[in-house]
C-alpha cells in the first residue's frame, strides 16, 4: 500500500481529503473506498492545471480557469498526439484547461453530440475539426449564440464552403498543400502516370489535398495524369492496396500520398520493389511518421510535408484565450500552421530528436539547433 503509482498519488492530491479519509482510502476496501478511488481516478484523468489557476500569469490579469473543448474526428490517432501536447502546454502557460473529445472513427454524429455537450456544459471555447460540410453548421451556430467562441482546426469544411460560421481556421491550408505537393512533383516529372493515394476519399480533412494536387497537374499543362486511388484508414490494409496497385501498374512515373498512413506505405513499397531503379521519378507525401522519415533519408521518398500538428493544438488555445480576455476584441485569425517540405537535406534533426513537439516523447525539453538555416 505504500508503493503508489505516481499517477494515483497525483490524483489523490487533487482531492480535498483530510488525513483520516486519505488513510482509509489507501487501506480500505469496500464500496466507499472503491467509489472514492473511482472519483480520484476520474479526477486524475481530467486535465487539471498545476499552475495556480487563480493567480495572474505573466502580464495577464487573473482569469478564471477557462475550459476549452477540442472536438476531433480521430481522437486516438497518433497524428494528434503532438496536438494534444501543444494544447496541454498552452493551457499550462495560461492557467486554463482543455478536454480532448470527439469520435474515434470519424463518426460525425458523435462529433456533433460532443459539440452539443460542450455547449450545454458552457465551455469557454471550442476547437472543432470540421470534417463535414453540413453537419456542424447548427451546432456551431448554437455555440456562438451562447457566447462561446469557436475555431476550427485541422479541417475546415470544403474548399469552397467552410460549412460553419467559426471565427477562424487554424491548420494547414489543405487545398494549397495539395497543390504544392503536386507542383513539387512536377519539378521531377515531365510526363507519365502519377498515382495519388488517399486513405479515406471524401473526407474533408484530406480530400482537398488530392483536389489540389490534381489541379496542379492540370494547370501545368504537362502530359501527366494524376489518378486518385483509395487505400484504407487502416495502415496495414493500405499497404497491401498500394502494393497491389504498383504491381498492377508498372512504369508509374510518380507515387504521391495525402495522408500519413498512405505516405508511409508508399515509402515502404518503393523500397520493397526498388522502384527508384525502375524509372520512378518522384515519390512524396504528408506528415512525419518515423517510417516516412526513414524513407526520406534513404531516398525512397523525395519529400514529405509537415503540417505541424503541435501548433494545431497550441495556437487554438491562445486564440480562444485572447478572445475572451479582450472581451471579444482580439479576434482569432486564419492561421496556416505551415507547409514545410522535409527532404533529405533537412530530415536529420527530425529523425534524430525525440521531442514532445513532434509527439515522439513526453518530456519537455529544449532542442538545440545551430548552424545556418537553409533557404532558397
Amino acid at each position: 500500500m505504500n508503493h503508489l503509482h505516481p499517477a494515483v498519488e497525483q490524483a489523490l492530491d487533487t482531492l480535498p481529503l483530510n488525513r483520516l479519509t486519505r488513510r482509509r482510502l489507501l487501506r480500505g476496501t469496500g464500496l466507499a473506498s472503491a467509489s472514492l478511488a473511482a472519483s480520484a481516478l476520474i479526477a486524475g484523468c481530467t486535465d487539471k492545471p498545476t499552475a495556480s489557476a487563480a493567480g495572474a500569469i505573466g502580464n495577464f490579469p487573473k482569469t478564471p480557469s477557462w475550459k476549452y473543448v477540442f472536438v476531433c474526428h480521430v481522437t486516438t490517432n497518433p497524428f494528434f498526439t503532438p496536438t494534444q501536447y501543444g494544447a496541454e502546454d498552452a493551457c499550462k502557460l495560461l492557467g486554463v484547461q482543455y478536454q480532448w473529445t470527439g469520435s474515434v472513427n470519424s463518426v460525425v454524429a458523435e462529433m456533433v453530440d460532443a459539440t452539443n455537450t460542450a455547449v450545454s456544459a458552457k465551455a469557454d471555447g471550442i476547437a472543432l475539426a470540421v470534417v463535414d460540410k453540413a453537419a456542424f453548421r447548427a451546432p456551431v451556430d448554437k455555440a456562438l449564440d451562447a457566447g462561446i467562441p469557436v475555431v476550427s482546426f485541422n479541417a475546415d469544411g470544403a474548399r469552397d464552403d467552410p460549412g460553419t460560421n467559426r471565427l477562424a481556421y487554424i491548420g494547414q491550408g489543405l487545398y494549397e498543400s495539395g497543390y504544392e505537393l503536386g507542383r513539387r512533383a512536377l519539378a521531377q516529372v515531365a510526363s507519365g502516370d502519377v498515382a495519388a493515394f488517399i486513405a479515406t476519399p471524401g473526407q474533408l480533412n484530406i480530400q482537398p489535398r488530392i483536389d489540389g494536387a490534381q489541379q496542379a497537374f492540370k494547370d501545368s499543362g504537362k502530359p501527366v495524369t494524376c489518378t486518385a486511388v483509395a487505400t484504407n484508414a487502416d495502415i496495414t490494409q493500405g499497404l497491401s492496396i498500394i502494393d497491389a496497385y504498383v504491381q498492377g501498374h508498372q512504369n508509374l512515373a510518380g507515387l504521391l500520398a495525402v495522408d500519413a498512413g498512405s505516405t508511409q506505405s508508399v515509402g515502404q513499397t518503393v523500397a520493397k520493389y526498388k522502384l527508384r531503379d525502375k524509372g520512378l521519378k518522384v515519390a512524396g507525401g504528408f506528415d512525419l511518421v518515423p517510417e516516412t522519415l526513414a524513407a526520406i533519408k534513404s531516398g525512397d521518398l523525395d519529400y514529405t510535408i509537415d503540417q505541424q500538428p503541435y501548433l494545431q493544438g497550441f495556437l487554438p488555445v491562445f486564440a480562444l484565450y485572447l478572445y475572451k480576455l479582450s472581451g471579444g476584441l482580439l479576434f482569432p485569425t486564419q492561421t496556416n500552421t505551415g507547409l514545410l517540405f522535409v527532404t533529405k537535406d533537412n530530415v536529420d534533426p527530425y529523425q534524430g530528436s525525440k521531442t514532445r513537439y513532434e509527439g515522439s516523447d513526453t518530456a519537455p525539453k529544449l532542442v538545440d539547433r545551430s548552424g545556418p538555416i537553409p533557404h532558397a
Partner: protein
Amino acid sequence: MSDVTVRTGARQPPGALLRRARDAFLRRREASVLVVAIGLVVYFQVATPIFLTTDNLRNIAQATAPTAIVAVGIVFLLVSGEIDISVGMVAALAPYLMHYAIDLYGVAAVPAVVLALAISALIGLANGLITTRLRVPSFVTTLGMFYLLYGILLTTSHAYPVAVPEAAKGRLQAWLGGADWATLIWCLAIVATFHIVLTRTRWGLHTISVGGNLHGATEAGIRVNRIKVGNFMLVSVLGALAGLMEAFRINSIDPNIGGGTRITFTAIAAAVIGGTALAGGSGTVAGALIGMFVLAVLQNGFNLIGVSANPFFLIQGAAILFSMIANQYLSRLRRRGGN
C-alpha cells in the same frame, strides 16, 4: 407455493408493507437496470450540476433515441434466438438509398423514405431466409451481409458524405429527426408499442417460444421460420429508421455512421444491459431503453466532467462492467426473492 404470506385482518407493520413493495418492484426484470440508471443520474448530477438542465437532457435524449430504436429490434431478434450484426450498415445505407431515390431518380421525398425502409426490410428478409432456409448461423449470415452492405455503400457513394436532399428538407426533416425532441418522441412511441407487442400479443409470445424452446415451439405448431424472418425484417426496418433520423438530425448523410460496428454493438449492449438474454427466450423492450439510457448517460456525463478521449474508454469500460455486475447482483436478489 407463494412466498408472500398475507395476514388477513391484522394490520401490517409498515416495514412489511415496504418490504412487499420492494419485492414487487424487484421482481420486475427491468428493476435492476433502472436502479443502476437512477444511481448514475444521481452521481452525475452531484458531480456536475448542469447534468439535469434541459439543454443537456436534450443532448442525452438525442444520443439515446436512435440507438434505442435499433435496440428494440435487437431485443426481438435476440429473444427469438438470433442476432444481427449488420444493422449498423443498414442504418448507414438507408439515408443513401433515400438520397439516390430523390436525387438520381426524381422520387418525391416521402415515397423515397418509404422506399428506403422497404429496401431495408428486404435486407432483413434476406438475412432471415439465409439463416432459416440455408441453415447458416445468424452471426455468420449477418457478418457477411455487413460486409456486403459496406461494399455497396462504399462503391455507390465513393465514401463521400452527402447533404440531405433539398426535397427532404423542411417539414419532413423536422419531423423525422431535425426538431429538438423529434427523435425522442419517435423512440418513446416505438418502445411503448413494441413493449406491448412483446408482452401482450401472439407475435411476442411466439417469439419468446421460438427462442426459449425451438423444438417445442415447432411441435406446438408455431411457424418458427416465419417468426425469425419477421424479426430479422423488424430489426432492419428499425435500423433504417434510426439511420434516417440521425441523418436528418445532423443534417448530413455520413457513411461512417455504420461506424464499423458502433451502432450495432451499442444496441446489443443496451439490450443486454437492459435484461435481454443473449441466449434467447427472454427479454424486455423497456429494459433496452433504460440500458441505452445508461450508456448515453455514461458517455454524456463523463464528457461533461471533462474526461478526455484516451482515459475515456478506460472509464467507460469500467462503468459498463460495474453496471452489469450491479445488474446481475440485483437480478439474483430478485430471483432469490421470487423463490
